[in-house]
């Protein structure tokens, strides 16, 4: 391992600084592509806000917001091709939407239904994982299977900083490295696991530095810098596709809201800490840059926000609007054919419901 590799795992890569200026020596991003990225950031932010409102109205059971992490959400989806797979967590609703899944479908689970809402095979997006880090192993399996079948699929596997303490994180990194699986592990280090700060999860030099122990590259990147994220994640995807194995990417970012609406962050962090992060907002710096280079004017800004409003209106109209869940269906998919016992239980529930209706 070279000194350069160690530096990459510890010092965050950055292209756009907090004031929206290119850092010295950074290549100029394609303004049109970045404007497209900005549109996705605005959509992601709007989706976070809309979901928060739906929780307050009691229309979503819970919502873990990715406010402040929108650049991560957008970048991890935008670097993938159609045939690639995304393995998201509960916090990655905006990333799934950025991948092209209808947000109304994505919100099925959080609105209180029992299934993930979308067809994983159609979108190549796994169901949102709640048991921490467990999905990382599935990502390795999808990637390894692709390799065995001679396909050049790449798998983007998401998790949080807290999840890196789980055993499955270790097993997934190690398996991926040993099998040279085409997986990009993307850790959104938002500094908290519910209430527990990063310092209690790990005293490693960085989370990306853990990659060194597995024999794969680790890269740390400013998680609020969309162009830098797209560059770093894009390179990791290219490596994986070329058969060079996995990469561990750590995004240095911040969870601006509470863990979920049910959490009270004031019990474990100060308002000042949050306030300090606000100027590093991922939308602001892209907007400043695009405006400065003349790629974003008021008209375009208005058009983007109007489109985001339309999306939000569709979410408001769509969440919970489908036909009510059929109680009989809880028996239908436990096995591909219900066992005789499940068939009897379904009939018993049906009879109860019929009796109530009568």
């Amino acid at each position, binding site marked *: 391992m070279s000194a350069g590799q160690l530096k990459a795992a510890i010092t965050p890569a950055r292209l756009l600084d907090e004031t929206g200026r290119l850092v010295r020596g950074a290549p100029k991003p394609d303004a049109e592509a970045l404007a497209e990225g900005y549109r996705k950031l605005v959509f992601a932010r709007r989706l976070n806000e809309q979901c928060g409102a739906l929780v307050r109205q009691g229309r979503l059971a819970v919502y873990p917001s990715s406010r402040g992490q929108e650049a991560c959400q957008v970048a991890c989806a935008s670097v993938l091709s159609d045939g690639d797979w995304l393995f998201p967590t509960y916090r990655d609703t905006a990333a799934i939407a950025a991948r092209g899944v209808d947000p109304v479908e994505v919100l099925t689970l959080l609105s209180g239904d*029992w*299934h*993930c809402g979308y*067809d*994983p*095979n159609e979108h190549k997006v*796994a*169901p949102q994982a709640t*048991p921490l880090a*467990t999905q*990382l*192993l*599935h*990502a*390795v*399996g*999808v*990637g*390894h*299977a*692709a390799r*065995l*079948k001679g396909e050049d*699929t790449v*798998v983007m596997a998401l998790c949080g900083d807290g999840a890196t303490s789980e*055993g*499955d994180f270790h*097993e*997934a990194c*190690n*398996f991926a490295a*040993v099998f040279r699986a085409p997986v990009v592990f993307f850790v959104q280090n938002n500094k908290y696991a519910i209430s527990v700060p990063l310092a209690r999860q790990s005293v490693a030099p960085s989370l990306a530095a853990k990659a060194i122990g597995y024999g794969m590259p680790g890269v740390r990147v400013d998680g609020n810098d969309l162009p830098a994220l797209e560059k770093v994640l894009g390179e990791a995807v290219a490596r994986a596709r070329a058969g060079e194995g996995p990469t561990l990417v750590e995004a240095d970012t911040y969870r601006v809201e509470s863990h979920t609406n049910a959490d009270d962050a004031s019990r474990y962090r100060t308002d000042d800490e949050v306030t300090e992060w606000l100027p590093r907002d991922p939308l602001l710096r892209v907007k400043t840059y695009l405006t400065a280079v003349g790629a974003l004017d008021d008209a375009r800004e208005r058009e983007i926000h109007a489109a985001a409003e339309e999306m939000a209106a569709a979410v408001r109209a769509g969440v919970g609007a489908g036909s009510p869940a059929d109680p009989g*269906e809880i028996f*239908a*998919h*436990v*096995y*591909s054919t219900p*066992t*005789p*016992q499940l068939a009897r239980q379904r009939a018993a529930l049906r009879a109860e419901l019929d009796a109530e209706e009568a």
Partner: protein
Amino acid sequence: MSAGKLTMAQAINAALRDALAEDSSVVVFGEDVAQLGGVFRVTDGLHREFGESRVFDTPLAESGIVGMAVGMAMNGLRPVVEMQFDAFAYPAFEQIVSHVAKLGNRTRGKVRLPIVIRIPYAGGIGGVEHHCDSSEAYYAHTPGLTVVAPATNADAYGLLRAAIAGSDPVIFLEPKKHYFSKEEVDVAIPVPPIGRAVVRRRGNDATLIAYGPSVPVALAAADQAATEGRDLGVVDLRSIVPFDDETVCAEVRRTGRAVVVAEAPGFASVASEIAARVGEQCFHHLEAPVRRVTGFDVPYPAPKLEHHFLPGVDRILDAVDTLQWEDAA
């Protein structure tokens, strides 16, 4: 295709070989399964025959093995994984319970996981601690899992083929004390499907209900009882989930008496479930309460003591003796 006298390990090996040969989506992996052929030699020769992409060793991590199998199944393969021993499958428990068992349901049937998790299980081999657990209740208690426990070598072959070919995840419990017992196996003769119990011995006085390693013990008890003038039947469950209420209850209704035999500790066990089901469904036919002959509620004992723990012929016959025969007179 293989026929003739095979040990259970050889029958399972033949099932894996035939499945690998017939279906290119079948992959076999686990700890020491490649070059070594597994610590029980169940995968002997498969790595040489099918190569590294079909049969391979993994790093030592059971959650990793099962978690990777989930992803491989999501991507169109049929993983057959080996847990080295029953008690070493526990690191994989979260993957099994939270994902293997639930993914079909969580995706409304869009994603099915044709995974077989093979587990050498139960006791009777003089294993030191952590090598002889009867862990079936954990799996049977988890909706979404099919739990299979063959008792014969023909079933070991046939049920494993069915498990690999099916679309749902299967916990395949291999009674390790039978790995090296030889029996005639004709793989050309199909066995009944998963979910069907089989009456191994017809008897008119009482029914012994068993699965996996307890079936031969129950049969031995029935032989012994016959010499003492009592005609015991034996039902071999073959699969714990799905549970074949029909076959079990038909036998118990005929005889009016039942004893469940299983190695696992009896408290909150599969044996308890069977006793409860039989009680609920056959009450009016029963001449006596259903008895359970199980392991004690202790951690699996040391090799020097395991014979005190395992249900044996005498203990089964003692239980049969308590089935209120005096009322039958």
